[in-house]
């Protein structure tokens, strides 16, 4: 192994209320500069995995290291401040704040006064947000809210961006845009960990992928290899 992974997940177990064992020893790595996807069906534990990494949920066993530092058990806001941005499922924009205010909250913990470059960058990636700066986030369409949630995460200048189902409930055209932007953000130096039910799109965009089934990683490989894997083709891509 050359350099240590940016995100290193080792044997993670997460249990809901002592009964539902959602993660059963998941290990995964994301190296700096990669786009890595985790695909799996509903209930496989994808969202639980991201929530455990960002500290929203606490694991029962296992460890997560980010940029070489152990982050297991740290409060969410501290993990976020280390440069690990998590765009949760269902977007979670601040509905009664304007688009501009939502973005401002994304940069909440940054100490620089002048954020104009960051705003310009976000508005360049998502021109529609620039046109709706003053609009309340709750009145945006689903796709626009997804863009805003991603833009808000970028305002923190994260090293790792974790996206939970960015294509969920969006029109195919909007999904194209979102994935284009994910690739662009990655080229600009942000490492991406992507969780998707839409396996085809996710694998097309990623360099590596993991397949999560009922709380366990069952496959792990380069994205192209996974795309041609018979089992993946049948179970996740709907091909023979």
């Amino acid at each position, binding site marked *: 192994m050359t350099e240590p992974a940016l995100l290193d997940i080792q044997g993670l177990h997460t249990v809901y209320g002592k009964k539902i064992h959602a993660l059963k020893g998941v290990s995964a790595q994301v190296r700096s500069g990669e786009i890595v996807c985790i695909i799996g069906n509903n209930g496989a534990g994808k969202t639980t995995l991201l929530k455990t990494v960002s500290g929203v949920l606490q694991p029962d066993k296992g460890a997560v290291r980010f940029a070489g530092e152990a982050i297991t058990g740290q409060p969410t806001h501290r993990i976020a401040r280390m440069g690990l941005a998590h765009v949760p499922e269902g977007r979670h*924009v601040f509905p*009664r704040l304007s688009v501009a205010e939502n973005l401002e909250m994304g940069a909440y*913990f940054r100490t620089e006064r002048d954020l104009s470059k960051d705003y310009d960058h976000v508005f360049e990636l998502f021109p529609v947000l620039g046109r709706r700066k003053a*609009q309340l986030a709750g009145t945006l369409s689903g796709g626009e809210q997804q863009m805003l949630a991603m833009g*808000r995460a970028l305002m923190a200048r994260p090293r790792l961006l974790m996206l939970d189902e960015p294509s969920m409930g969006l029109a195919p055209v909007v999904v194209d845009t979102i994935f284009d932007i994910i690739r662009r953000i990655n080229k600009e130096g942000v490492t991406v960990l992507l969780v998707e039910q839409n396996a085809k799109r996710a694998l097309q965009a990623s360099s590596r992928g993991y397949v999560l089934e009922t709380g366990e990683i069952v496959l792990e490989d380069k994205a192209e290899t996974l795309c041609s894997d018979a089992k993946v083709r049948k179970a996740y891509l709907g091909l023979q």
Partner: protein
Amino acid sequence: MTPVSAAKWAGLAAILVVPALLGSGNYAYLVQAGGMIGLYMILALGLNFTMGYVGLFDLGYIAFFAAGAYGAAICGAYNVPLLIELPLTVAFAVLLRLGLGVSILRLRGDYLAIVTMGFGEITRLVINNLDSITNGPKGMEVPPLQLFSWTLSGNLGYYYLIAACVALGVIGSRRLEDSRVGRAWVAIREDETAARLSGISVNEHKLLAFTISAGFAAVAGMIFAHWIQFVTPESFVFWESILIVSMIVLGGMGSIYGVLLGALILGGVPQILQVFLAGSKWIDYRYFFFGVVLVVVVLFRPEGLWPHKRRQAELHEEAA
């Protein structure tokens, strides 16, 4: 000078000058009513921090007003000077509220309402039964406010003291609302998960709002006790907590001037009605009118009478 700012100055002058002119005339009761309304304003401004900004419902807020009042009474009984009484009483109320705050950090909505309601009732019952310290239902006498050798007595003096505290409360609220802390509170109210993921320490910010609101209530309670010079558990019933919540809803959650207006209307109308309807058969109906006003406002102006611009935008999108 624009008409609006002229009206503002005229209103301010009226608030300051008129009570002095009413001094000993037929309308002297208005000075006392004004003082009571002012106390409600301090309470409503205080509760606005947790309820208006952070969005946490509280049906037991009067408990902290009681803590302030009994703090003053107990300190009075032991001849504790004001400069020690003030920090002691505020610290006691804040600790009480932090105790409640820590236990309800994870609760929201209905559950929060039930727990806070229970807390308010427990506080009243404890005061009622802790005879050795609070003298139970018989109540305690409280000396007037005394700073060194100077004693504050009479309705007019307390009126001005309360007015000054309201002014300080408004200035403090405005500064906090526009600060980083204020923005963090609003973010938490809007979406707690997103606030956490944006790097906001949600628990600490909630507890800070709790602390500030307890401080407001404690100061109001202290002034109340020294002014009326008598406290009993009867003054701190569940109804008072409801009244303060209603002031905030009526005026506009999270809106400083709305909250003041709510306190003026809900704190003032029953008192004025009581005087004007005295002796008439309508006196028994005064809370009926009160209820009708609340229902009408919530039906036709759910964002409150003087809403914060954000809330108005939400409920009337065409205005945004």
